[in-house]
């Protein structure tokens, strides 16, 4: 964990809704892994010119690592960025997600949320010939996915209650990762967990994970704003997360 500077090297519009930013980052971020994030603050060249709006650092999940020192992030196209923009980055924040060794089929679910936080694992998993299914539920059904790898199976849920072939995809999945409504993630996780339990009576440990994307004031485990209750005690999104086993997370 370090505070480093980066700059936006390139901006690419990938579809009507989203743009991708290539960030030239410090070597300390070269080994960032799926699940880990960056706490980003736009800065001016003159260090004295501090602007406090927006105040908190933004939580950015990389979607791709292109070269040793280039990380790609996905942002809404309407957000104004310029090449050369300097960034102050604290990271990597959080712990890498724990993928099963013998993973063959993985199910990713984005409920009312952009799936960006799940995309970093796509390339390495596809290289391992893992079958990936991405389900977009709720508001996430509007997500434009034309830029995602063709090998990815994309399903847009019909409503909040399910999707075609749900029994099949839930039955085949070796592991599931869920993104919930930002700010209301626990409610989303509870809803998805009920859905999964209705199709699979036994949920083994480390099978279904929920990934938190709460705004983090410090990102280092100091402020305790991101603390959650689990059956193993209190855990922090910024240190122990962002992915938590949904069978151990207290969702009430």
């Amino acid at each position, binding site marked *: 964990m370090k505070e480093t500077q980066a700059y936006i090297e390139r901006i690419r519009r990938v579809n009507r809704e989203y743009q991708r930013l290539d960030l030239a980052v410090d070597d300390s971020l070269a080994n960032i892994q799926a699940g880990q994030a960056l706490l980003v603050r736009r800065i001016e060249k003159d260090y004295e010119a501090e602007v406090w709006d927006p105040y908190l650092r933004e939580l950015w999940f990389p979607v791709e690592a292109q070269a040793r020192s280039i990380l790609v992030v996905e942002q809404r196209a309407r957000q104004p960025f310029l090449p050369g923009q300097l960034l102050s980055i604290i990271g990597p924040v959080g712990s890498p997600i724990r993928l099963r060794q013998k993973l063959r089929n993985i199910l990713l679910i984005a409920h009312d949320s952009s799936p960006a936080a799940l995309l970093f694992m796509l390339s390495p998993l596809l290289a391992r010939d893992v079958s990936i299914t991405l389900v977009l539920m709720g508001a996430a059904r509007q997500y434009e996915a034309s830029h995602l790898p063709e090998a990815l199976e994309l399903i847009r849920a019909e409503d909040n209650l399910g999707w075609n072939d749900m029994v099949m995809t839930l039955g085949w999945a070796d592991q599931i990762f869920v993104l919930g409504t930002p700010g209301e993630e626990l409610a989303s996780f509870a809803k998805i967990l009920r859905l999964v339990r209705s199709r699979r009576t036994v949920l083994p440990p480390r099978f279904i994970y929920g990934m938190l994307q*709460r705004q983090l004031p410090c990102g280092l485990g*100091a402020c305790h*704003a991101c603390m959650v209750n689990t059956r193993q005690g209190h855990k922090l999104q910024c240190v122990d997360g962002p992915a938590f086993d949904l069978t151990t997370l207290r969702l009430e």
Partner: protein
Amino acid sequence: MAIEITRPGKYSLAVGTPVLPAAGTLGFGDRYKRLLDLSKLGALITNPVTLVPWNPASGARVVPLDAGFLLHTGLPNPGLKKVIRQYQNTWSRLSIPVILHLVGTSAPDMLRACARLDEVEAIAAVELGLSDDCTVADALAIIDAARSLEKPLLVRLPFFECMQLALPAADAGADALVLTAAPRGTVRDTASGRLTSGRVYGPLVKPMILRLVGRLRRQIPADVPIIGCGGIHSPQDARDYIEAGAVAVQVDAATWAQPKMLERIGRDLGGWIATRQRNALLDEWHPDMGTTEALQRRMPSEDQAESN
């Protein structure tokens, strides 16, 4: 150069730099090691601790505001016994004093907590945080109980009640007053659509607390130091508090947004106060000044002195 931040007497606390992190900002001293040079600060103030464990708040915790944010954590902590067991070795290794922030819940709790705290050498002082709904009678009972402590006792006052509580707290034996805890506010959380309450952080807090510091400095006895806390985001903000009568400052949320700012304010204020006490020019030192520039600046005045 030591700066006394508590009342002179048997239990007094002196720090090298009058800049401290506010309670809740740096955790228990182990989190910011790689981002900050803690030795540039006067002391470490820990996250709030209660006698028994407290759970995190449910619902929204962070709501962004224009140039600030609202935070409600519920002060989760594993309880005094576990905190001491877990962190006292970390505190012993720090080069700066450790001030434990104790949440003032009730007088009996304070008595039990203070008995335990007296045994911990790594803790140099205690900062007592009074709750927002604390009456004068409650405050006096809690401070009276906490006065059993054989260490310096700083009392952090709630924002809205600080005018009523400051003088009684000083009379009851507070060794220093910390003005103030971040003010409480209520905003609508756009994510959930619900009204959410919590503490408000940001630069706009500073003018309000700065005024309180100025007013209370004139009202409370001169031997009770005031530590200013709230909305400090630059070295100049910290200097303003010193000018208003504070002996030291605590920096809160700015540290999360820009960790180096805390260290920068520490370096600046440490240098500024040293310079002022030697009757030197106020602008003689700044934190980014190298040795060469410092020497070049000094030369004209030396030449002038020689010519006189």
